[in-house]
């Protein structure tokens, strides 16, 4: 994906305070990789927390930017529908494979319950030693004293290994999963940077073909706790048509991949921006679980989720109309100083660190949150005894997206213990 990134020139946007409030639009993707979105959301939270705007690419939509308003909308699954799609854009070529994150009940619950055993707490306890062993191997093979790309060597490698385990995917071919995940989240609005919507569809159909092979092999064998076997052997999903199978695969691949990957990179970056916190951590490794929640808040790996109102709804003194598109900006809710003290600071011993919006709320609340937390916890538990410092040697390059808050390049130099 580096070729993609080289083409990405920074774009300068106007100061949000110079833009008429009703025209303030936080959705342009180039706002995000340059960090210009923060000021846009600050103004929205302060002056128009429930705010309507128009955008050429995405049509008209409501921006929900305060923590408590986000919780209210996210947990009202009766009024706010996740269908047909949970990101701000629409498919121009009508290629939106159905997946349960973008389904309302009763279908949502039926499908979610099929795959959730693969990431249930007891199952995770069984996976812990396997994950720890793999993390140790990856860390032991990193170069010490020379600069390398943390994103590729650690974040992508570890999340991809995990994903291969959850699917019981041929381990040596696991980078296919990384590739499909990256293509799946490519926004049609960054077409000029490499991937057209048609190309994306073609790659996804390749992905489907590969997984159909795995399905056919699992269906012949007894049911076990990997995602494919669970889907193939359950009555709620056994009759899915191929596109629906693909949709749910995309959800499981992307859900478990980019987000955790961004948190593995984001944590290292945060520790370098706030070096006193790394010291605190070295002195008190018991802070790791709390720090993991703080990393996930600070990073907010997914910037938004979208809904469509099924009826008129009053919130923040405004009336959202039936049929309107509503964007819950998690990236903003996690910086809301009415709920989170000094929200821009990264504080590993923050009180009530779990109280963040990064995993969403309501029936669609992240299914893999415990798994993500466990992976991050293990990573830091294994990093601390090995290295005295994890130095970020230059500013990272970020993904250009208003959805995935990720990094493509984070140059890191490790210092021996």
């Amino acid at each position: 994906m580096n070729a993609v990134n080289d083409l990405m020139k920074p774009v300068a946007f106007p100061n949000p305070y110079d833009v008429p409030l009703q025209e303030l639009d936080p959705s342009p993707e180039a706002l995000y990789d340059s960090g210009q979105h923060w000021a846009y959301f600050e103004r929205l939270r302060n002056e128009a927390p429930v705010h309507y705007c128009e955008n050429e690419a995405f049509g008209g939509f409501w921006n929900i930017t305060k923590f408590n308003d986000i919780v209210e909308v996210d947990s009202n699954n009766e009024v706010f529908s996740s269908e047909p799609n949970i990101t701000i854009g629409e498919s121009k070529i009508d290629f939106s494979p159905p997946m349960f994150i973008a389904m309302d009940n009763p279908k949502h619950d039926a499908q979610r319950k099929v795959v959730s055993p693969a990431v249930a707490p007891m199952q995770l306890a069984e996976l812990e030693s396997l994950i720890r062993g793999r993390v140790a191997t990856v860390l032991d093979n990193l170069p010490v004293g020379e600069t390398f790309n943390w994103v590729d060597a650690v974040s992508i490698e570890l999340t991809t290994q995990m994903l291969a385990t959850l699917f019981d995917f041929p381990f040596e071919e696991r980078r296919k999963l990384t590739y499909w995940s990256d293509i799946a989240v490519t926004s049609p609005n960054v077409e000029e940077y490499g991937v057209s919507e048609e190309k994306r569809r073609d790659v996804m159909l390749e992905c489907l073909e590969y997984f159909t092979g795995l399905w056919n092999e699992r269906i012949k064998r007894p049911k076990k706790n990997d995602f494919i076997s669970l889907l193939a052997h359950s009555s709620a999903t056994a009759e899915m048509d191929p596109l629906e199978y693909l949709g749910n695969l995309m959800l499981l691949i992307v859900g478990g991949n980019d987000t955790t990957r961004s948190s593995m990179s984001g944590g290292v970056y945060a520790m370098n921006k706030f070096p006193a916190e790394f010291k605190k951590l070295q002195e008190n490794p018991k802070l790791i679980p709390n720090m993991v929640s703080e990393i996930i808040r600070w990073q907010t790996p997914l910037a938004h989720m979208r809904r469509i109102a099924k009826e008129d709804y009053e919130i923040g003194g405004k009336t959202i109309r039936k049929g309107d598109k509503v964007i819950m900006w998690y990236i903003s809710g996690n910086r809301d100083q009415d709920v989170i003290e000094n929200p821009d600071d990264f504080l590993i011993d923050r009180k009530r660190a779990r109280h963040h919006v990064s995993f969403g709320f309501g029936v669609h609340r992240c299914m893999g949150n415990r798994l993500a937390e466990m992976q991050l916890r293990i990573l830091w538990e294994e990093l601390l005894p090995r290295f005295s410092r994890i130095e970020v040697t230059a500013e990272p390059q970020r993904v250009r997206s208003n959805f995935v808050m990720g990094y493509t390049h984070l140059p890191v130099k490790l210092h021996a213990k």
Partner: protein
Amino acid sequence: MANNEQDTFMPTICFVEHDGTEHSVTVNSGISLMEAAVDNDVPGIDADCGGACACATCHVMLDKDWFEALGDREATEESMLALAAEVTDTSRLACQIEVTDALDGIKVRMPESQF
């Protein structure tokens, strides 16, 4: 508390971990059962959503008698519990139960998956 202040009754709640460890707390009526745990650092109730009935990380199991005495779950609570682990017939979300004097002596168990 000042001596001349009128003594008010405070109910005692017992939270039981999956391994049997008990945590008894004495709290004011009017708060939620979730807050009774969180305010007293009882492990096993994360309450990630802060009591909005939107995360199911405050899942507890009651004895049958207490469950019946407390009345029905609301629809939202029902929909959140549908996705939680280890749900039983007497499962509730602790943030949806108000502590009253009548709850004095209640025992609530917490699922293993919440630790």
